[in-house]
């Protein structure tokens, strides 16, 4: 199954019955799958007039109590960021996927991870976070989107699947999760009072500054709980690793091969793969930093995750960087070359332009 199709099917199994989409490469299979399946199971696929409309339809459907989803790719996510901010401000759960492509602007349509800052720092205006999950296989795409619906409902906030054109377009074997049997109650939903309760309001406007501060601070307490309990990661051959590659999503797949190749050469390399990008798995990475000598961040962007690694390990070790951007895919041989340099005591900060045009050298 293609990553995008596995995402769609798994979302349906998680109880999603409303999907509001808008075409954009390379996420279109998600919409296509939903449009094919939803009418047959009593669900709704609606193609909105824009990304902006789609996310606001999500807002309405979520407010009405439904499990609801939208998906897009980088330029479309920028448009959706308005609605994401409102969802957060109104404490509404929703799931959306960003099948990333190169940017900025119209960019390219090839796989990229250059929306890391956007996803983890602030996807819209205001003090807020969204849960961000980065799958590195088709299987994990299915697993994480399923979990995203549960987490979104649990914490009453949006959850994003941050994937890319590679994971979305590729086909791999996948075992899909069982359909969910019972959805959580939503007593806060605006689905009609039935004259049995006080009216519910979905709203993010507070003209009284003190009231808004109280609400934002309260929400931050929820975020603190998430930071403490929801860090997800995979540590691969890191127990005795001196050189730890940090990579997520597609670039982690490539880095894993490089780590294996380095181990064959006797280099003590490991891979730390953040699965939740927000919250970032700080605690485990800090623990690894106690025994590791140096870190190498491998990304399909200009090094946007380096800040988070440095913060996680309190800047106690060097954080090197290797990446490609714009839709160019790093090769595991390139990552291996970087690991070899680190083994030799050198530093690595390779920007894609150099690595591409000088055959991998600095």
């Amino acid at each position, binding site marked *: 199954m293609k990553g995008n199709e596995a995402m769609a099917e798994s979302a349906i199994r998680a109880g999603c019955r409303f999907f509001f989409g808008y075409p954009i490469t390379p996420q279109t299979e998600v919409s296509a799958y939903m449009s094919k399946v939803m009418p047959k199971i009593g669900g709704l696929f609606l193609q909105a007039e824009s990304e902006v409309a789609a996310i606001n339809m999500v807002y309405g459907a979520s407010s009405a109590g439904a499990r609801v989803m939208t998906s897009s790719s980088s330029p479309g996510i920028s448009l959706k960021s308005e609605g994401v901010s409102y969802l957060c401000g109104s404490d509404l759960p929703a799931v959306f996927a960003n099948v990333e492509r190169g940017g900025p602007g119209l960019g390219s349509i090839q796989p990229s991870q250059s929306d890391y800052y956007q996803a983890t720092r602030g996807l819209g205006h205001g003090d807020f976070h969204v849960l961000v999950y980065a799958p590195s296989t088709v299987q994990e795409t299915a697993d994480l989107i399923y979990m995203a619906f549960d987490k979104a409902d649990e914490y009453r906030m949006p959850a994003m699947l941050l994937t890319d054109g590679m994971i979305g377009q590729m*086909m791999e074997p996948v075992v899909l999760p069982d359909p969910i049997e019972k959805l959580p109650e939503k007593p806060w939903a605006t689905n009609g009072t039935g004259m049995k309760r006080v009216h519910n309001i979905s709203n993010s406007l507070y003209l009284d500054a003190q009231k808004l501060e109280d609400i934002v601070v309260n929400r931050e307490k929820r975020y603190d709980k998430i930071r403490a309990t929801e860090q997800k990661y995979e540590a691969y051959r890191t127990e005795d690793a001196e050189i730890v590659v940090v990579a997520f999503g*597609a670039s982690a797949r490539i880095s894993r091969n490089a780590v294996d190749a380095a181990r064959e050469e006797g280099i003590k390399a490991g891979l730390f793969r953040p699965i939740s990008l927000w919250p970032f798995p700080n605690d485990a990475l800090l623990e690894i930093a106690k025994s590791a000598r140096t870190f190498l961040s491998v990304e399909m962007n200009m090094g946007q995750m380096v800040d988070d690694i440095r913060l996680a390990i309190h800047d106690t070790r060097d954080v090197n960087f290797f990446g490609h951007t714009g839709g160019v895919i790093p090769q595991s041989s390139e990552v291996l070359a970087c690991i070899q340099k680190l083994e030799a005591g050198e530093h690595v900060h390779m920007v894609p332009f150099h690595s591409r045009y000088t055959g991998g050298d600095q």
Partner: protein
Amino acid sequence: MSTIEMTLAGFGGQGLLFAGKMMAYAGLIDGKEVSWMPSYGPEMRGGTASCSVVVSDTAIGSPIVTEPDVLIAMNRPSFLKFIDAVKPGGTVIIDSTMVEDRPERTDINFFAVPATDIAEENGLKGLANVILVSKLNKELGIVSDESLKAAVPKCVSLRHQDMLEYNKQALEIGAQQ
């Protein structure tokens, strides 16, 4: 074999993506790690369609193949685009009905199969792709013959179940080339 990386390329409609899927599915049945990745976007519109297939004994890193062990080329633009990227010692199979060029390289195993003609002669129009995949597997034994046969019903859509038998015939003919 630890890892075989393949590029299959040709015109849209020649069934390269389908052929790639067959290889991937057969690998899956053999218990191997597999991935299949299409090219996408504007280049798919009317021009060259290609896909990357990886069949491996170990976890697959990038599903995007840039230096293939195997190239199947079903039109001239694909042949010209990918021939230099093939790894030394790699295997190149062309549909010689469609591609008149021959490689200048001597460090590859090269096979020219007039697959489109063969398909038409045998009443199997549109199944040149399957003939080439079968030829490839005969030469390299990437997957077992049984698995390749078993992959056919997995890849043929429900709408086209009437094509199952023709696909199996094409596999047999391909293995004789």
